[in-house]
């Protein structure tokens, strides 16, 4: 069965630090990859997605993610985090032909001023 692993459950950073959140998926075929974010008190919302083409995807608020097929990974990055990036981040995948979004367990990010 398809699965998504997010290795860091909790991350604490100071403002201006760089961020990288790991995401690995288990499926050998075509995948569509997503990062969703849930800010405190808000709905889950799409941050960025990858379907095909350039493996480096840019999303909202300065976030980017890189698809590395050989590593089955889709890590999320931001060069300099802000206090307002405090949120929970979910990696998700739709494996080819399955038409179902599979989420990882999420990573809680706390950014201290």
């Amino acid at each position, binding site marked *: 069965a398809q699965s*998504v692993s997010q290795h860091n459950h909790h991350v604490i950073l100071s403002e201006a630090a760089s961020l990288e959140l790991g995401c690995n998926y288990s499926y050998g075929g075509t995948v*569509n990859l997503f990062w969703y974010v849930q800010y405190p008190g808000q*709905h*889950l*919302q*799409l941050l960025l*997605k990858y*379907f095909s083409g350039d493996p480096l995807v840019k999303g909202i608020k300065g976030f980017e993610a890189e698809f590395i097929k050989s590593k089955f990974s889709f890590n999320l990055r931001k060069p300099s985090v802000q206090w307002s990036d405090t949120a929970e981040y*979910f990696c*998700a995948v*739709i494996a080819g032909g399955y*038409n*179902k*979004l*599979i*989420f*990882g*367990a*999420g990573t809680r990010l706390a950014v201290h001023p």
Partner: protein
Amino acid sequence: EAGVAQSPRYKIIEKRQSVAFWCNPISGHATLYWYQQILGQGPKLLIQFQNNGVVDDSQLPKDRFSAERLKGVDSTLKIQPAKLEDSAVYLCASSRDRATDTQYFGPGTRLTVL
């Protein structure tokens, strides 16, 4: 445009009682999803509708959970009877057509089963 609406926002019941959740998707969205999010885990798809037909309900515990989508718009999810392990946030989402289209999530209903 208005977002996905859900009610109630919070519900506390005792085990073996029944409960129902309501969802109103974004206008014009053909596909509606119900997810269960247990504390510390990511959302898990329970059921997916396209218009008023079921596309996927493979992870819906059909002995106690049921869902319907009236006239391809609003949807209700029911649990009867509830178990302690049903305590979770129930999220509704909608998308224009396919699962690969951006899914827009509602605020969720937090269910506590005592």
